[in-house]
């Protein structure tokens, strides 16, 4: 852990912000790179404990014999990958980084963006993870080290940095969707759209899926919210907003009712969690983004 207020402790005169003395916390970007490196390896080799629990509970409530067989194999796979230090899914995905940066933080020692990429490149090399990114959708030349990281920055109050890594497979990302609904379509329209998206994805999203839903904001805001919704920890914990929590429970039932089941072979468990995030939007708008994550859920978060 870094010293939270190195300037204040070092006796140097703190920078003056808003007329009051306050500590500007310095964080070397090398620290960020090293953290990203470590998280890339951990996320790909070890299925997070709460997600293992979620799959165990899915195994208990799954009624289809074939579905139970699939869930047994997923659980066995998680054990083998952790023991052998091998990725539990060969699609080691995009390295998506969410950074919530306290406004009193100053990154030192170089470019933060470059440090994030360096962390990804080192982690993917060290963990024997697949380089899956091409430098352009047109020429499709592999970048060779899984960079660039897909980064979302948010400025927040304080002097902490919350770094969340989501390793996102393309199979399920490809089956995600965004629609600009009308206010008249309402929550019922939103639910229909979510279930349609799941039905269209079928086995390709590698169920049982985690479903991230972003509602409101603008076209782009909804998509980022949906992706960030996937990172909620532990998997399947309800929204703090009781209305959204109720909607999440209704959606779990509606999605399971499709019968798609584990691996899409048919069964009673198609989703292990629906996470809904909402944001203010326009009087004329009801944007809804649905981002799907396969059962190989790879999320790690730390506070620097």
């Amino acid at each position, binding site marked *: 852990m870094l010293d939270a207020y190195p300037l204040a402790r070092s006796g140097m005169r703190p920078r003056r912000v808003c007329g009051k003395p306050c500590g500007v916390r310095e964080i070397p970007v090398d620290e960020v790179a090293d953290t990203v490196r470590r998280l890339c390896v951990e996320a790909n080799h070890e299925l997070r404990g709460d997600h293992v629990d979620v799959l165990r509970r899915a195994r208990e409530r799954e009624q289809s014999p074939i579905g139970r067989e699939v869930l047994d194999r997923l659980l066995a796979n998680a054990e083998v990958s952790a023991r052998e230090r091998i990725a539990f899914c060969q699609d080691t995905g995009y390295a998506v980084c969410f950074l919530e940066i306290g406004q009193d933080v100053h990154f030192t020692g170089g470019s933060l963006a470059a440090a994030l990429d360096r962390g990804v490149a080192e982690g993917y090399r060290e963990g024997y993870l*697949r380089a899956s990114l091409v430098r352009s959708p047109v020429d499709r030349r592999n970048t060779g080290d899984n960079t660039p990281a897909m980064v979302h920055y948010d400025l927040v109050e304080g002097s902490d940095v919350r770094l969340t890594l989501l390793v996102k497979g393309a199979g399920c990302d490809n089956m995600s969707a965004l629609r600009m609904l009308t206010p008249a379509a309402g929550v019922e329209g939103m639910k229909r759209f979510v279930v349609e998206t799941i039905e269209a994805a079928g086995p390709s999203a590698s169920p049982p899926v985690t479903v991230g839903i972003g509602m409101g904001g603008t076209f782009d805001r909804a998509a980022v919210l949906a992706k960030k919704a996937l990172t909620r920890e532990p998997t399947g914990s309800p929204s703090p907003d009781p209305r959204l929590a109720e909607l999440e429970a209704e959606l779990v039932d509606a999605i399971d009712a499709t019968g798609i089941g584990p691996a899409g072979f048919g069964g009673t468990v198609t989703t292990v969690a629906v996470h809904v995030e909402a944001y203010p939007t326009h009087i004329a708008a009801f944007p809804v983004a649905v981002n799907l994550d396969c059962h190989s859920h790879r999320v790690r978060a730390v506070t620097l």
Partner: protein
Amino acid sequence: MTGSRDASLASTPADPTQHADRVRKPPTSIRLPLDADTVRELRSGDSVLLSGPLVTGRDAAHARFAAALSAGEALPFDPAGETLYFVGPTPARPGHPIGAAGPTTASRMDAWSPLLVERGLRGMIGKGRRSDAVKDAMARHGCVYFGAIEGTAALLSQCVTSSEVIAYEDLGAEAVHRLEVRDFPALVVDDLHGGDLYRDGPARWRRVAR
């Protein structure tokens, strides 16, 4: 190879709860390369353990197969009798033949698969639904589609006993490899008799939302 259909997976609609505690038929061990009789006997929903040679290929390799064929050039392998696995593994650790090696989404290969099926490809392994055009070509030419369980890449890697690049080495993980597998687990998804596990399985368990 018994060829008998697993009652717990048959497409006859029934009360799903009646099937809930049925024990699944144990998997059938199959030696690769597949022969025409074996392919004909397989039924959608059957569990199989495959042993023998596979060839790998995914998006970029298929684009090159198609380009080679349209230029009148030979393919880097003869598809006749082969089983093709849609996979792009992670790098192998030293001393291991392969890294994590689970199936990728087969529908991305739909545009190209008929070209190989028409040339005698007898099996494909991937995940996800196939197009009607692919299924028609498979039924016509005697090719079966197996589903491997995505997200079991670490387990599946342990079934691979050897791996070598046979074409397009510059494609890295997407290069065409010759794999030898032992007891590689898969399910028959699309058989030669109209069975489709991705259609029939979910249809059995579909219900009205509460």
